[in-house]
């Protein structure tokens, strides 16, 4: 039996499966586009290759323009994973900053910031995203920013709660008694201690960000052609759902599988990071 944190991680049900699947998807997304050197977005003018069912020629079938759906999915994985992670990173930065400030300073600063968070959490975020995306020029950067900026509130609340309990701990008091500045204490003594649950939550948040991106792309407001994400593939598949269901099934399945794996790995992380507390 493997001991320690790694052991705790792999004793979580499904963690193996999660790592395996996620590793495969991330691996393909990273290496795939280099290995399969065919341009996935190029049209295939051989009409006979349009809407081919999955088989030996096209593993995932082909789309309405005769493009290999497997290659398209691999390329889309790259974009979906990147947008999801980058958006989460943005959310993590904002959430940690606001949460730390709110929890450490307290008082009216905390009051204002947390009411602001309440208001944001009360908004129907999808509507807001759609409106904002419709106003700005859609593109990768704007999608990342918008998903990040709309998704930091949960992290902020978590960091704030952790900060408030850590603030009362002796080592924080003693660090201040050594004359370290409030900034130093907050960033170097409190934040690292607050990170464990936050990292788990952020990891799970990647899944949510991928899903949000898919929804935006599905509605045509996310990543713009010729680049495509899983959500974009779904959007594209809509008109052919009867003749070519594989065009829906494969990207949709990949989204579901990725989010499921992220959950499993996230649970494992939670057990390994927080199990000994």
């Amino acid at each position, binding site marked *: 039996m493997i001991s320690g944190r790694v052991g705790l991680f792999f004793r979580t049900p499904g963690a193996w499966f999660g790592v395996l699947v996620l590793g495969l998807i991330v691996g393909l997304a990273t290496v795939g586009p280099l290995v399969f050197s065919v341009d996935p977005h190029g049209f295939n003018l051989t009409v006979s290759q349009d809407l081919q069912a999955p088989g030996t020629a096209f593993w995932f079938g082909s789309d309405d323009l005769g493009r290999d759906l497997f290659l398209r999915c691999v390329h889309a994985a790259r974009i979906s994973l990147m947008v999801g992670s980058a958006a989460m990173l943005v959310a993590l930065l904002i959430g940690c900053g606001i949460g730390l400030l709110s929890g450490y300073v*307290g*008082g009216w600063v905390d009051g204002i910031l947390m009411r602001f968070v309440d208001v944001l959490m009360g908004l129907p975020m999808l509507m807001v995203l759609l409106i904002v995306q419709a106003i700005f020029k859609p593109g990768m950067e704007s999608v990342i920013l918008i998903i990040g900026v709309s998704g930091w509130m949960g992290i902020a609340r978590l960091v704030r709660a952790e900060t408030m309990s850590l603030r*009362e*701990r*002796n*080592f924080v*008091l*003693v*660090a*201040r*008694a*050594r*004359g*370290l*500045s409030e900034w*130093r204490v907050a960033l*170097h*003594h409190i934040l*690292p*201690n607050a990170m464990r649950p936050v990292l788990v939550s952020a990891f799970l948040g990647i899944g949510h960000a991928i899903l949000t991106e898919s929804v935006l792309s599905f509605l045509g407001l996310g990543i713009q052609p010729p680049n495509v994400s899983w959500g974009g593939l779904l959007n594209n598949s809509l008109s052919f759902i009867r003749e070519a269901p594989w065009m829906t099934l494969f990207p949709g399945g990949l989204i579901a599988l990725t989010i499921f794996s992220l959950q499993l790995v996230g649970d494992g992380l939670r057990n390994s990071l927080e199990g000994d507390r």
Partner: protein
Amino acid sequence: MGTVLQVAGLRTHFQSAEHRITAVDGVSFEIAQNEVLGLVGESGSGKSITALSILKLLPSNGVSSADVMQFQGDSLLTASPQRLREIRGKEIGLIFQNPLAALNPVLTVGEQLLETLTLRGGLSKREAKEKAIALLDQVNIPDAARRLGDYPHQFSLGMCQRIVIALTLSLTPKLLIADEPTASLDVTVQAQVMALLKDLQRQHQMSMLLISHDLGVIAQNCDRVMVMYLGRIVEIGTPEDIFLTPKHPYTQALIRAIPATDPRQKQVFDALKGEIPSPLAIPSGCRFHTRCPMAEPRCRQEDPALRACGKAGHLAACVLAGGF
């Protein structure tokens, strides 16, 4: 010997939604250079709050005021936050009970020492590393250079307290406030840590405010002793005054409660009646009259101030003091 710290009329209270709890109520004392001043009392008597009030590190709902709070001629009452930060660590050091909780669990011991030495001590990274090793050597941590990379939980409790001492003394403060420095340690380790602390105090010519509920630790290490009860100082004197001729009934009761180590000696524990009253309902008159074996009717009304009894410098706050 000059006075390092002078405190007069220190009052600290905590404000909650419904209650105002007075934890320290008019405490005055002085610490001379090189002097070790002991502060004893039961849990809840306001010892730690006194210490935190001096450094202005009270929890956010704590408010303190004082008539005088002078540190080496500087008033701590009017000091700017920047000046206070300068004083913390470099001028007044704080050692807290439970050493494991006093170290940051996610930073290595080396990181915590280096941080203090570079940011507060003004040393370069390399000098700081050498100094850190020297400091750990000084507090008898074996294999100091290698252990800089270890986390607090990898050390024993006694070692942790020695690391905390190294950390606090790395800035060579003039005054050290040691709040129950040995309370959570084994008896043998307690003796080692206390000896080390005393040794370093002498070496660096520091003054020390030693807070403890362990009368043995106090008796062995202090030049003067204060006894605290419910936020007030009830008796001050030399260890001889306090332990041989205690004047306040509370001090007398504390001393009677020390267990004898000789099993043949029959001892009747004459523990104090009842518990320390809640600071929400402080008794009228003398605060101790509810538990005092010698209380007279007038103790319920009269609130005695500290006054000289017997030898010079021996003060007690009891209407009966001097009467025996």
